[in-house]
């Protein structure tokens, strides 16, 4: 029996590249791989938004209107729906002049039980230390 902790680190802004969406898609998909593992083996995952990556968590994105795409806002909410631990770097939000009012905090409309966490970078660094595998996007 083993637990594999995956840490997804998103550093790029949304759109004009697939990276942030790939991170979210892979994090979400990681929640279903247990059915293919040995009995008792489990996978947990955390996803952290740092640097320009915090922009993926902005509220009221107009991706569908502008690009005809699902927004990263919706994908962050889907991650919350699936109980994925979503961390957002506080220092980087401050750097952009953003506050918690500007970003996705909950996904109550989808029935999610948990919220995103705005945390100092030190907490994200601690999560990275604890992760067995780190994936940078």
């Amino acid at each position, binding site marked *: 029996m083993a637990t594999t902790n995956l840490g997804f680190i998103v550093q790029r802004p949304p759109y004009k590249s697939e990276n942030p969406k790939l991170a979210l898609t892979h994090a979400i998909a990681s929640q279903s791989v247990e059915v293919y593992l040995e*009995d008792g083996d489990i996978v947990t995952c955390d996803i952290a938004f740092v640097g320009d990556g915090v922009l993926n968590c902005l509220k009221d994105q107009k991706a569908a209107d502008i690009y005809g795409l699902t927004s990263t806002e919706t994908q962050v909410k889907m991650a919350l729906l699936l109980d994925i631990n979503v961390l957002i770097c506080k220092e980087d939000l401050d750097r952009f002049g953003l506050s918690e009012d500007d970003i996705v905090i909950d996904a109550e409309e989808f029935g999610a039980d948990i919220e995103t966490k705005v945390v100092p970078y030190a907490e994200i660094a601690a999560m990275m230390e604890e992760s067995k595998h780190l994936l940078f996007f």
Partner: protein
Amino acid sequence: MADLKSQAPTQTLDVLGRVCPFPLVLTKKTIEKAEPGTLLKVLCDAPASAEDTIPKYCEKNNYPYELIKIEDKGYWEIYIKKS
């Protein structure tokens, strides 16, 4: 497989229109929260989830289940008993 279809479900989970892996993960989440003895009916139109991952999840956890394909509507009804 157990004869679950003939019993009245305690709870229904509608994941129609959701693609893999959402049906599995939402089923897992619902089952984890449910009381033992709950009979969950899942409505699912994602083939990989209905025919592969949800049955595998039930087998791994020893939850009796019954899978019924509703041909004319193009979705599956999955009855899962939380033991």
